[in-house]
């Protein structure tokens, strides 16, 4: 009985994430098809990647015939944050999370899934996590398919308006954090300034978009890690250590 309720608790916690993903993945579907991918290619990208920022950056690389090195390195850097989240999550798992389950859950360890799972007061097990990732995964896939398939049936002004949704989601992640943490705010501004330089300065603007993301994000993060390293006990792992 307790096992069943753990799954249900995860399911309930996942629903808000699912609804958020529906709108964002809908916009991604429109964007990818508008960039030249087919409906099925777009769906396969969402079903195998489940990552907004990485997918968004990959589409122009694919449609413009970029190199595999550019694609791989952009995905690596953009998705590097998941490594931190997986490291943090690895210390919050209970004994039911054996190797096969870790292999499965890692597939859908998105920003929002991680944030919800890591904020649970107790260690989380496989039933809770499977409940948690189920609807976000379906929402991400379904929204992408619908956006890709019928996005062009919508009036042009509406689909172009939906293009802003994914950036709204990014701002919803960035701004609250930057508001609370001054060094993060500085990092965000620094990264934005570098990004603008690569957009508007003549020679720099020729650098492929995948590399621009890598260069700017790594530069801003390295600078901030040097001038404003985080306090020794600021990480999620230390909380677990205190609980233990």
């Amino acid at each position, binding site marked *: 009985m307790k096992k069943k309720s753990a799954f249900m608790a995860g399911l309930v916690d996942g629903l808000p994430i699912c609804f958020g993903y529906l709108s964002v993945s809908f916009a991604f579907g429109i964007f990818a098809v508008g960039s030249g991918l087919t409906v099925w290619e777009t769906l396969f990208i969402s079903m195998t990647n489940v990552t907004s*920022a990485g997918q968004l950056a990959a589409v122009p690389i694919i449609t413009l015939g970029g190199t595999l090195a550019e694609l791989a390195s952009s995905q690596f850097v953009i998705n590097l944050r998941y490594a931190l989240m997986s490291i943090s999550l*690895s210390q919050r798992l209970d004994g039911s999370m054996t190797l096969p389950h*870790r292999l499965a859950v890692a597939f859908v360890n998105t920003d929002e899934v991680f944030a919800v799972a890591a904020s649970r007061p107790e260690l989380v097990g496989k039933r809770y996590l499977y409940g948690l990732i189920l609807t976000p995964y379906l929402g991400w896939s379904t929204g992408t398919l619908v956006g890709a398939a019928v996005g062009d049936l919508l009036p042009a002004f509406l689909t172009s308006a939906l293009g802003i949704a994914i950036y709204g989601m990014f701002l919803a992640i960035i701004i609250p954090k930057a508001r609370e943490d001054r060094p993060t705010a500085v990092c965000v501004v620094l990264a934005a300034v570098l990004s603008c330089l690569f957009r508007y300065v003549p020679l720099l603007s020729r650098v492929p978009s995948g590399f621009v993301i890598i260069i700017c994000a790594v530069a801003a993060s390295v600078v901030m890690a040097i001038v404003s390293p985080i306090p020794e006990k600021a990480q999620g792992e230390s909380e677990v250590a205190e609980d233990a």
Partner: protein
Amino acid sequence: MHSFWIYLLVMAGVTYLVRMLPLVLVKKKITNRFLLSFLYYIPYAVLSVMTIPASLYATGSLATAAVGVAVALVLSWRKKSLIVVAAGAVAGVLCAYLVITYLLPALG
């Protein structure tokens, strides 16, 4: 230029390995402060680079996109949820579009 399937394999493979390897391999705490700090900042730096200035070109109109971004900034500053901020940005763009397309010409 490569086959779509090669691109798909590379991006899905890299994304999965980045998520999976730490979850499976990391057994003890990371203690290197520089590495922890770098990993702490990288998500926000990435999202910032992707959002600015690209979001201003997301709708095909600098004016409507700027309104959408402004609405998103206000809502996210007030710590609204992901879906509220995203929907608010879209609504802002639509309102700006209607004003620019219908109201301003009507006013002459």
